[in-house]
């Protein structure tokens, strides 16, 4: 399952989307919004996505971990305003062997942060608003 949603992410539902009687281990990564960034207090966050392209790339990544490691994976990313402490992204990877589940889940979040066209905008308590540049270096080094 690959999804971009404006609603709160139902973690249990993401896990269930990859679980199955054959699975031995599921690794789940949950990205949560933080109350600080660059040493400043964050009041709120929002995410923007180039949705059709983001979905295409995420579906390709999910196929890739399936072909490489036999892992069944799901990625759900939230867009719009995300309250502090709530999940912005949930990735689940299920496999008969935990090694593959861990590898696939790590690969998916690393690739997501590197190439999936989604942007975070932080509203700081001092009133400033900024597009996050957290992935600047990775993109430049491609």
């Amino acid at each position, binding site marked *: 399952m690959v999804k971009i949603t404006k609603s709160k992410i139902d973690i249990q539902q993401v896990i269930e989307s990859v679980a199955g009687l054959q699975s031995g281990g599921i690794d789940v990564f949950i990205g949560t919004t933080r109350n600080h960034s660059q040493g400043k207090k964050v009041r709120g966050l929002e995410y923007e996505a180039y949705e059709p*392209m983001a979905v295409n790339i995420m579906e390709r990544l999910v196929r890739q971990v399936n072909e490489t490691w036999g892992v069944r994976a799901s990625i759900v990313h939230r867009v719009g305003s995300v309250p502090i402490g709530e999940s912005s992204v949930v990735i689940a990877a299920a496999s008969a062997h935990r090694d593959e589940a861990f590898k696939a889940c790590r690969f998916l979040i690393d690739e997501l942060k590197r190439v999936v066209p989604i942007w975070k905008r932080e509203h700081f308590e001092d009133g400033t608003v900024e597009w996050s540049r957290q992935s600047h270096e990775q993109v430049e080094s491609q």
Partner: protein
Amino acid sequence: MNITLKLFSIAKDLAGFDERQVQFNEGDRAEAVLRHLAGLNPRFEQWHSSVRLAVNLEYVSNNHPLQDGDEVAVIPPVSGG
């Protein structure tokens, strides 16, 4: 050629719009979009090295040839997750 230009994040803020139809010349490459944006706002110059371009939902190199009807997206450094 008629191109649909889509801007996101900082690129959208610098240009002041998120989507626009723009005419390009036959034979223009994707980088023509970056020149077009620099013409709108000189501050785009400092972003050239970090911005990537996508044509019809796929990343392309700057010398990818444009075709009539293409959707060209300007992708600033991503920060999802």
